[in-house]
C-alpha cells in the first residue's frame, strides 16, 4: 500500500512539472466552459449540469484523459527508468495501481475545476444537490474507466502518440460506436452491445439514478483494464 502511495505521489509531482498537464488542464477547462456557456447557461433552461454532462464532457474526456495517461508507463519504457523501477522492491500491481491513482488524482483536479459551473448556476436558479452528486459520481466512474484504458495503452507501447490515439479510438468505440450500433441491431446482439456501451451505463447517472448494475459495470471494466496492464507489464520482463 505504501508503495502505491509513493508511486501516486511521484506521478502527481511529475504532472505538475510537465507542460502537458497544464495544457490538458487548459484545454479541458476551456472546452467544458464553452459547452457550459453555450449549452446550459441561458435564460429559461434548467438549472442543472445535465446537458453538459450528457454528451460534451464525455466527448472532451475521451480526448483529454488519454493525453493525461499516455506518459504514465510509456515514458518509463522510453527512457529506460522502467529498469530501475522494476528492480526496486515493488510489484507490478503496485506500479500499475500507483500510476492509476496518480492519474485519478489529476482527473479529480480536472473535475474540481468544473465545480465552478454549478456554483455559477446556483446564483441564478435552484440546484438539486443530489442530482448533481449523482452526475459527479457517474463522471468519476466514467473517468476511472478512461484512465484505466489509457494506462493499459501506455503499458502497451513506448510511443506516447500511439498510446493516445489507440486509447481515444477504443474509448470512442466503447462509448459512442457500440451505442450507435446497438440501435441498428436486433435481438441478443442489441442487448450485448447495449450492455457493453459505456454510454448506456453512464446515461442513468445523468438522469439522476444510481443503479448497482451500472456501478458494477464501471468497477469491473476498470478492474479488467488494470489487470490487463499488470499482465502486460509482467510479460515485458520475459521479452
Amino acid at each position, binding site marked *: 500500500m*505504501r*508503495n502505491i502511495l*509513493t*508511486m501516486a*505521489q*511521484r506521478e502527481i*509531482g*511529475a504532472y505538475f*512539472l*510537465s507542460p502537458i498537464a497544464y495544457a490538458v488542464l487548459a484545454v479541458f477547462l476551456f472546452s467544458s466552459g464553452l459547452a457550459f456557456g453555450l449549452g446550459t447557461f441561458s435564460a429559461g433552461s434548467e438549472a442543472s449540469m445535465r446537458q453538459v454532462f450528457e454528451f460534451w464532457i464525455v466527448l472532451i474526456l475521451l480526448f483529454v484523459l488519454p493525453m493525461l495517461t499516455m506518459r504514465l508507463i510509456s515514458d518509463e519504457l522510453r*527512457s*529506460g*527508468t*522502467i*529498469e*530501475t*523501477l*522494476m*528492480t*526496486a*522492491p*515493488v*510489484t507490478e500491481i503496485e506500479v500499475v495501481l500507483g500510476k492509476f491513482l496518480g492519474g485519478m488524482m489529476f482527473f479529480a483536479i480536472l473535475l474540481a475545476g468544473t465545480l465552478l459551473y454549478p456554483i455559477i448556476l446556483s446564483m441564478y436558479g435552484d440546484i438539486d444537490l443530489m442530482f448533481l452528486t449523482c452526475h459527479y459520481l457517474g463522471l468519476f466512474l466514467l473517468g476511472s474507466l478512461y484512465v484505466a484504458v489509457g494506462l493499459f495503452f501506455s503499458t502497451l507501447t513506448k510511443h506516447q502518440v500511439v498510446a493516445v490515439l489507440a486509447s481515444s479510438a477504443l474509448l470512442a468505440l466503447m462509448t459512442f460506436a457500440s451505442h450507435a450500433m446497438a440501435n441498428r441491431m436486433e435481438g441478443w446482439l442489441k442487448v450485448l452491445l447495449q450492455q457493453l456501451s459505456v454510454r448506456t451505463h453512464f446515461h442513468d447517472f445523468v438522469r439522476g439514478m444510481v443503479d448497482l448494475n451500472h456501478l458494477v459495470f464501471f468497477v469491473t471494466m476498470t478492474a479488467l483494464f488494470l489487470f490487463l496492464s499488470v499482465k502486460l507489464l509482467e510479460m515485458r*520482463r*520475459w*521479452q
Partner: protein
Amino acid sequence: MIQVTNLTKRYSSVLAVDNISFNVERGGVIGFLGPNGAGKTTTIRILACYHPATNGTATVAGYDVFKDSIEVRKRIGYLPESTPLYPEMRVREYLQFRGKLRGMVGNDRKSAIGRVTDRCWLGEFINRPIGQLSKGMKQRVGLADAMLNDPEVLILDEPTIGLDPTQIRETRKLIRELGERHTVLLSSHILHEVEAVCSHAIIIAKGKIVANGSPQELRDKFSSEAKVIAEIKGPENEVEKSIRGLTGVEDVDVASTNGWVRLAVKAKQNCDVREGIFKFTTANGWSLREIRRDGATLEDFFVQVTAQQQQTRSR
C-alpha cells in the same frame, strides 16, 4: 553471495547467455569483463531480477532471483548501464522517492540520503533538477541511489562509461571503498579498469565464461601474448643473430627500412627480453630509437578466445 548455476538466456533466436556458472564470495569487487555483446548486461539483468532466465538458477544474498525476487531486490543496489533517471525530478526528490520505494522511513531515509550524497559528491547539486546535470553527475546520482539502502550486493553495469578521466578515477576509488563493506559486481569492457578496481574477475565472451580468476592470473594470461618491439640501427643479419641468441626469445619478426631494423619479439612466458636487447645493442655500438612492450589488447584476446570457441563449436 552470488551463485549462478547453469544459467541460460535466449532472446527468440539469439543465445545471449550460454549455460554459465560461477560463485561470488562475500566482500570485494568482482569484475565482469567482456567485449560488447558478450552477455554481461543480460547476466546482470537476470541477477538484478529485471529479466528472468530461460534456464538455470541464480541466487543473490541467499534468495532465488526468480522465486524470491522481492527479497533479492531489497538486498541489492543496481545501477543500469544507461543510468535511467527522471529528468524532471530534483536529486533530493529522486532519492527520497527511491528511499520510500525501498521501505525507508523518516530519519533513516534522511540520514541515508545525507550519507550517499556525501559519498557521491552530490552535496551541492542536491536541489538541481536531474535533467540539468551532466552525464557524470547523473552517473553519481544513479550510484547514490544504488547505495541508498546500504545493500549487501551492489550491481553496477559499466559504472564509468561516459565519465571524464577525473570522474573515472574518483568513481573507481569509491567502488574500491565500497568493496570493503559490500559485495560489488561490476561489469566493464575495459581490462585496465578491472585490473585497477577488482579483486576477482570473470571474463565472458559470446555468452560463455572464458576465464575466471584474480587480476594477477589474468595479467599472466595476457602478458604471455605480449610482444616487445625494438628498432635498432645496425646490420640486419647481425642484429637478427644477436636477438635469436637471447635467452627466452621464442620468435622474431625482422623488417628493415632505411637502415633501421625493426624487431617484433615474442618471448616465453614470464620472460622480459628488453634488458637483453638494450645490452647487446650498446655492446655492439648500435643505436636504439625505440623499445616498448606491445601488450596484447583485450580486443586481441577476445578475438583469439572467440575464434577458439567457434573452432570448438564447428568441430
